[in-house]
């Protein structure tokens, strides 16, 4: 089986120019391969760079050294050197992202937020709406909230809107940054079901999960981070 994404010899150091040019190394010699249909969990203590690695895979952080390769048919695209518009195109069609926080867009209803990635990919309103509704229902977001803007929702409700949005399209690669962080067990179980379904259709998933029971249920492989690199 061939990987659909490969991170090769990835290094990253933050340089805080306005705080005495302090250097904070966060990623050192990271290598990983991601395969279709499996869930790779980034594992390590707080400060070991899990989130930085995940953000690098999404192009949200810029790495200093190494390659972030995405398979496109027979060829590889290196995200580390790709143009912004290539990364935007990748995010629209190939790489999905779910964080624990919803970046609320003023005036957009929960339903619109979930439908947005589908509409941007040319899926019609008529097709996108039932899909969005079924995701929100699956995640127990009360129907009376669907047409409201999520700014006033609880943290858990916002998070579930965000998860529904992340699962709205069948992305080949899905990156999950603690998607269950503020959810109760029942709702977490619903998210696990979505992850299992995504795996079953062949998605490659890379995730960070704080709860060990979630990790044990979804992980096919663990990627062990190094211990925090001290100065």
């Amino acid at each position, binding site marked *: 089986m061939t990987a659909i994404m490969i991170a090769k010899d990835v290094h990253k150091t933050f340089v805080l120019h306005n705080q005495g040019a302090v250097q904070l190394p966060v990623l050192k010699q990271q290598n990983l*391969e991601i395969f279709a249909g499996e869930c790779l969990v980034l594992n390590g203590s707080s400060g070991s760079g899990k989130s930085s690695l995940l953000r690098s895979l999404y192009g949200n952080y810029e790495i200093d050294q190494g390659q972030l390769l995405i398979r*496109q048919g027979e060829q590889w695209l290196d995200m580390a050197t790709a*143009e912004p*518009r290539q990364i935007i195109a990748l995010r629209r069609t190939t790489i999905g992202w779910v964080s624990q926080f919803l970046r609320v867009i003023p005036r957009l209803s929960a339903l619109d937020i979930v439908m947005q990635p589908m509409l941007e990919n040319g899926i019609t309103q008529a097709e996108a709406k039932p899909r969005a509704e079924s995701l929100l229902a699956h995640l127990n977001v009360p129907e009376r909230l669907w047409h409201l803007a999520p700014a006033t929702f609880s943290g858990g409700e916002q998070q579930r809107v965000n998860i529904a949005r992340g699962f709205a399209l069948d992305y080949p690669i899905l990156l999950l940054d603690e998607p269950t962080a503020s959810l109760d067990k029942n709702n977490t179980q619903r998210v696990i079901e979505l992850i299992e379904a995504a795996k079953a259709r062949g998605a490659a998933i890379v995730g960070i999960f704080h709860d060990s029971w979630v990790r044990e249920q979804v*992980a096919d*492989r*663990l990627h*062990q981070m190094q211990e925090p690199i001290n100065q």
Partner: protein
Amino acid sequence: MNNAQRVTDTNTDTNESKPIQTDNVIQLTSAPLLSAENISMLYAPGKGFDDVSLTLYPGEVLAIVGESGSGKTTLLKSLSGRVAPQQGSVNFQQTPFEMTNLYEMSEAQRRGVMREHFGIVHQHPMDGLRARVSAGGNIGERLMEVGARHYGDIREQAKTWLTAVEIDVSRIDDMPLTFSGGMQQRLQIARNLVTHPKLVFMDEPTGGLDVSVQARLLDLIRNLVRELQLAVVIVTHDLAVARLLADRIMVMKQGKVVESGLTDRVLDDPRHAYTQLLVSSVLQQ
């Protein structure tokens, strides 16, 4: 059974460090709409902008951020055909696959290009509107400039655009000075978009508006940009505005571009000292 125990520690794999051959696989076929090559316009040392290059593709939104006096507005004027740079060239794709230098054509030709393909949204709406012409007239005037003559059609289009920018159609014959600041700004946007430009330049379009009015305007701009596949260059000092609207961001300091890239990358992982200062100075919500 718990297969998560199968730990693969790939970090130790260091012997094979040869990079893998890559290709520019995603073929983004469209040619650039606008390109600037090494343009400079300095009124005085550090005043204006210096050696800026950029490329903008159809449907792309670029934000230019930086503090007052960093040369953002002057740069916008040069990009949009209003101030000739002292050096370098600004090229626009007037016909498919042919870039023409905006400042090598005649004044009349340049005005033609601007009228037909550009929209310019000023920070102060009344700078872009005609005070003595009704709201409908402000929109219709742009249509007449590009050749529309049928009064009924023009009025119908004006109504459509008033609705699109959420202004009550019953206000069509009112003068813009009787409108609120937010309404004036929306009218200015309608006046600019009615001719279906390819490229819109905006200078602090939400500056000076109340926060609630700002949110509404931003949401409106966001939708219009997506529906009409507009390319936009927007100057703003508000990083939240850039994050909401822009695909790419360019950070300017004292006339120079210090950092540019994907919007969320620049804002979440700023690398230049000045960008780090800008990002860290924003109050967290």
